[in-house]
């Protein structure tokens, strides 16, 4: 396979953003919307083709591309395995949905918005494809620029504060990772992660390097106590921005733990497990309680994201097969569900320009289709069996039980709280009496909204009943991840 299919996948959105930049439509933005839709669908199909042709019986990296980049130093190395392909497909799947959503919600500077989204897509796919620490860092950080602009230009009233907080928090976290990456280069003589896996980083350096990586991933994840940028960013970001932020950007950190922290620093990962457990449990319980008290819908969903990401970190660091598989499953399913929930908020926000829960109530009387879909996603978010949300949480808890009953018990408590805030949100928004007379004049969801939400609902339920397509894809890679980890621990 000599055709550089991964590079094509990465740079296709960038190329099409260039076309949009050059396209001239003054009055309507149709041509830019069509170009971006077309290119994002093409990217999606290409990623599906990749998934189809990926050999899932091996944990080796496939479609590897290695190009000379910086002399004798860094190679532009790309490759995917069973874990990364799912995140790539998630990215390419969410992007067209975002583009559809901005037809309704973005009114000013549509062209620039589409360019920002497509450039962001390039960087996101790049993160999941890169097999070199420097390339990874490059894509990981580069995503800040378009996201900063998306929040700042198209955001709500407090957008400047939120955009700055988002940018500076993430940058502060990642500079330490950059030092660690450089230190790894001088320790091992390479930044190619497949070689670093072989070389094994000396034990005495692992803890400090692991912490440096944590500083970046914890902010991005986000883990308590550095999660505070997330609610602000979500609240102020436009709908499409929130969707991308929740569905994909947060997953980069979880992916980072799986791809970098655990295989490169197995001993440190073992050593710091209690720390991660503590932070995850605090995230699950504390942020769930905070979510209960929110009166802003987007803020509530943002806090629920922090709680869900708590399960992900918990699952990853159980370092059991169930735990890690559950985490990956949880990330994918949260990618779909949180995207859908933010879209749902966006739908009513476009109509009434309010995110406050108190504005709504009794929507089921006037927007039945919308209410049904909202209910589906709310139930999926709280982990109802039969939706994809259930499987992830269940596997994570199953993995946690193998390690510690106490931690698992506390985490289970979070499930109850999750049900509480989600159901209460549904009750206050969808059911109840109609207090606001404006609701009576609302239109139910239109065609493009139906397309987005029904597609998402289909996959949420499909993967709830039939997890095999996802599970089969990553199970071999996860097995080898755990095997390598065990070997590294035993050989110390």
């Amino acid at each position, binding site marked *: 396979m000599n055709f550089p299919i991964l590079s094509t996948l990465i740079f296709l959105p960038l190329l099409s953003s260039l076309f949009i930049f050059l396209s001239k439509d003054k009055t309507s933005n149709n041509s830019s919307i069509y170009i971006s839709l077309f290119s994002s669908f093409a990217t999606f199909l290409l990623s599906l083709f990749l998934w189809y042709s990926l050999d899932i019986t091996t944990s080796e990296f496939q479609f590897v591309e290695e190009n000379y980049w910086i002399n004798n130093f860094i190679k532009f190395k790309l490759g995917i395995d069973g874990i990364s392909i799912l995140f790539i497909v998630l990215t390419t799947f969410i992007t067209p949905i975002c583009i559809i959503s901005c037809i309704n919600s973005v009114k000013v500077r549509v062209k620039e918005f589409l360019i920002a989204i497509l450039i962001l897509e390039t960087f996101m796919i790049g993160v999941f494809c890169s097999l070199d620490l420097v390339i990874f860092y490059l894509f990981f*950080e580069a995503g800040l620029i378009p996201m900063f602009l998306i929040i700042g230009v198209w955001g709500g009233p407090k957008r400047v504060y939120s*955009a700055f907080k988002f940018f500076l928090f993430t940058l502060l976290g990642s*500079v330490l990772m950059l030092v660690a990456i450089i230190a790894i280069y001088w320790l091992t003589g390479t930044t190619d992660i497949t070689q670093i896996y072989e070389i094994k980083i000396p034990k005495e350096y692992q803890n400090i390097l692991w912490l440096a990586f944590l500083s970046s991933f914890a902010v991005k994840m986000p883990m308590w106590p550095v999660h505070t940028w997330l609610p602000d960013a979500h609240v102020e970001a436009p709908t499409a921005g929130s969707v991308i932020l929740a569905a994909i950007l947060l997953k980069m950190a979880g992916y980072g733990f799986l791809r970098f922290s655990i295989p490169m620093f197995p001993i440190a990962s073992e050593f710091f497990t209690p720390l991660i457990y503590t932070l995850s449990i605090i995230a699950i319980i504390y942020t769930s309680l905070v979510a209960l008290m929110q009166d802003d819908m987007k803020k509530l969903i943002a806090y629920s994201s922090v709680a869900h990401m708590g399960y992900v970190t918990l699952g990853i660091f159980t370092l059991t097969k169930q735990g890690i598989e559950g985490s990956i499953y949880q990330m994918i399913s949260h990618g779909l569900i949180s995207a859908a929930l933010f879209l749902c908020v966006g739908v009513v926000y476009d109509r009434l320009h309010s995110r406050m829960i108190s504005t709504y109530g009794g929507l089921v009387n006037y927007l039945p289709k919308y209410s049904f879909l909202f209910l589906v996603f709310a139930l999926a978010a709280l982990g109802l069996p039969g939706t994809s949300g259930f499987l992830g949480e269940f596997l994570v808890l199953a993995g946690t039980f193998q390690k510690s009953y106490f931690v698992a018990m506390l985490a289970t408590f979070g499930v109850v709280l999750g049900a509480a805030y989600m159901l209460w949100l549904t009750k206050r928004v969808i059911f109840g009496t109609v207090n606001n007379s404006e609701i009576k004049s609302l239109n139910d969801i239109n065609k493009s909204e139906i397309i987005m939400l029904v597609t998402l609902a289909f996959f949420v339920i499909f993967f709830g009943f039939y997890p095999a397509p996802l599970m089969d894809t990553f199970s071999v890679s996860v097995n080898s991840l755990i095997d390598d980890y065990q070997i590294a621990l035993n050989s110390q």
Partner: protein
Amino acid sequence: MIDNLNIMLPEFFLSLSIFTILMIGVFIKNSFNIVFNLSSLIIIFTVAIILNNSNNEVKIFLDSFTRDPFSNYFKILILISSLFVLNSSKNFIVENKLDKFEYPIIILLSILGMFFMVSANDLILFYLGLELQSLSLYILASIDRDNLRSTESGIKYFVLSALSSGLLLYGCSLLYGFTGSTNFDVIANQLIKDNTGAVFAMVFILVGLAFKVSAVPFHMWTPDVYEGAPTSITSYFAVVPKVAGLALLIKFMFIPFSNILLEWQTIIIFISIASMILGAVSAMVQKNFKRLLAYSSIGHIGYALAGVATGATSGYQSSIIYISIYVIMNIGAFSCLYLLKKDGEYKENISDLSGISKKHPILAISLLIILFSLAGVPPLGGFFAKFYVFLAVVENEMYALAIIGLLTTVMSAFYYLKIIKTIYFDDNVITFETRKNTIAQFSIFTSCTILITFFLYPSVLNNLVSSLFIN
């Protein structure tokens, strides 16, 4: 002798051309345009001569003058950046009535001084070159002689710079006294032995050099001179003398002081950290774009010095890469200032940029790229500059310097973001007349293209710079 002439051909050509265009300027009336265009041609020819000349290391005139890849690289960098700075500021010069024929001639004279600075292998030649450069810069700072702020900045620069030159000269004489030679190589050999006196001399010389590159705590002149001098001069100050100053600093550390590394390393580390922190903190509260760029240049010199502080070849290389990318970014940033024209007046406050993304999308996106690059955000060129520096710093196990440096990167990102916020998030106030300055637009375009595409093939600069230190 003819061989020696051949080796110094760029310098000879430059001096003779300066005299020629000086005559043209004196004898022909209203000759600014002719002199200006001839100067650009001279710069291009000099670049051609240097490229055409062979690159191997030769020392002539009793080993006081070197021609090597190192000096040639810096000469070309100085020439090309002057060419861009000079040409993109032409409209500005004419509109602000600075179009005296001396202007380009003095710039060429300062370039000649820098040539001797980067080629010097001897204290005397180095000092002469430095003074030729400084004297030209004093005149340039106060070239707008009817303007109070310009003359003030000229005087300020002159007084402080003369003081630092005095210290430098005192250091040179001490060094001569303790080592018995003015030749760099001889001094280096003499310093193998324990030599306390030479350490004193080194401190004085470092003070002088730190002043020339405006590193903390000898930076005080920078903001005032940057703000007071006309923008065309400021952009020259921000780019070209910095390159020459850093080249000289690296040369001093690399040849005469290479054997007292431990003594100067601590000083450079201190200067570097202080510059990074002061650059980041003071720039946050600035309202004038030029003043902000002054503080940001102090910070950038701090990063470049962090590479020098390693005392290793890889560190010097990273500094050279840093300063090269810095030059590209600053040419772009200053060229943007030439486009901010409204009713015949050039705006230089950050608040004037408010909301220009709506009316001037191309200018806004260029500024966005340049500012993010200055902040060091990947995948733009500025990131690679910082990356190479910190690579060298961590290689030499100076973790504290690396971490402080990267934390100040975050702090400085704040004020770059503030400008981007003004450009993109705020409401439109002023519509500028941008259409007329094609050369400035070309400079911005070149600078942005290099910054964006740098990540595609970063080895070019890397290979070039690593070939400078083969000896």
